[in-house]
């Protein structure tokens, strides 16, 4: 029951977050400086997600696995920069996971 209730309450809170600056207080009413600053949100949040996920992965990894993961991340970044293709990045990520599984097992 706790699990289900937590999902429902969390869902309601998340919905409030989602509509807060769209419906309740549209961001156009906020200072222009704030709106302009949000132009940088996409790269900032993407890098933040990647950093947090990498930190979590590296915490539980052996030195070999950690090195492989960091090297793979660098390669994927370079490939994605040149190809601008998310699917290729995902495929490289999957190859890394499988390689780590079969080579370090």
């Amino acid at each position, binding site marked *: 029951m706790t699990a289900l209730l937590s999902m429902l309450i*969390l869902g309601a809170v998340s919905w409030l977050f989602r509509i807060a600056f769209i419906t309740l207080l549209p961001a156009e009413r906020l200072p222009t400086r704030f709106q302009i600053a949000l132009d940088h949100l996409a790269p900032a949040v993407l890098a933040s997600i990647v950093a947090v996920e990498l930190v979590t992965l590296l915490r539980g990894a052996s030195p070999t696995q950690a090195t492989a993961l960091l090297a793979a991340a660098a390669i994927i970044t370079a490939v994605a920069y040149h190809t601008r293709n998310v699917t290729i990045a995902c495929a490289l990520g999957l190859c890394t996971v499988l390689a780590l599984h079969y080579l370090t097992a």
Partner: protein
Amino acid sequence: MRSLLGKTAPPQALALRDVASVAPGLAAFGMTLGVTISALGFGTLPGLVGAGVVYGGSAQLTAVTLVHQGAAFAVVVASAAIVNSRLLLYGASMSRRFRDQPTWFRWLAPHFVIDQTYLLSNARPDLDPRTFRRYWGWLGFLILVLWSSSIAVGIVAGPALPELPHLVFVGTAMFLGMLAPRLTNRPAVVAAVTGGLAAAVIGLVRPELGIVGGAIAGVIAGSAVRR
């Protein structure tokens, strides 16, 4: 002639192409969450309800883990809500796209705001309001179906799947694939580097604050450089 995948393609075709580009990363993360839900005994019903209602993997994963650890109800909700607080920033950033939309759309459609929908639609700034409405509906619906299905597969097939502790890296690769093409100017690079470093440091101390803390630091740094 513009191809079906070009900018003049129907909104549903644009949405389908965008969803396909992130599908492997999304499916891997969803399956990882499903396996975790199964392994920690969170329950199939709460897991699947959370997939649609919370519609945010990191927050749901936080809640699943904390419930398993026996944390108090308020702690579970508050911690997971902090993880999802970046949705406030996404909403603020997307406000203009919703400004000229019908009232029902402004109240209901923001439910589809997640990392992927925000970032994918952010790359299509030229859609007119009507086209955006249809594109957004399809995008959110298709990702919701893919996301819920992936979690369900993880829950059901989890025990039979080989153990892949690094499977979530496919999701990391997806975000790297979305990040790299955006590093085209100095403010963007500064925002990304600052955001990443701040998130890593904050995340070491308070994991639930890492993403939103890094995002705010990156936005401030990017703005400072542009001035």
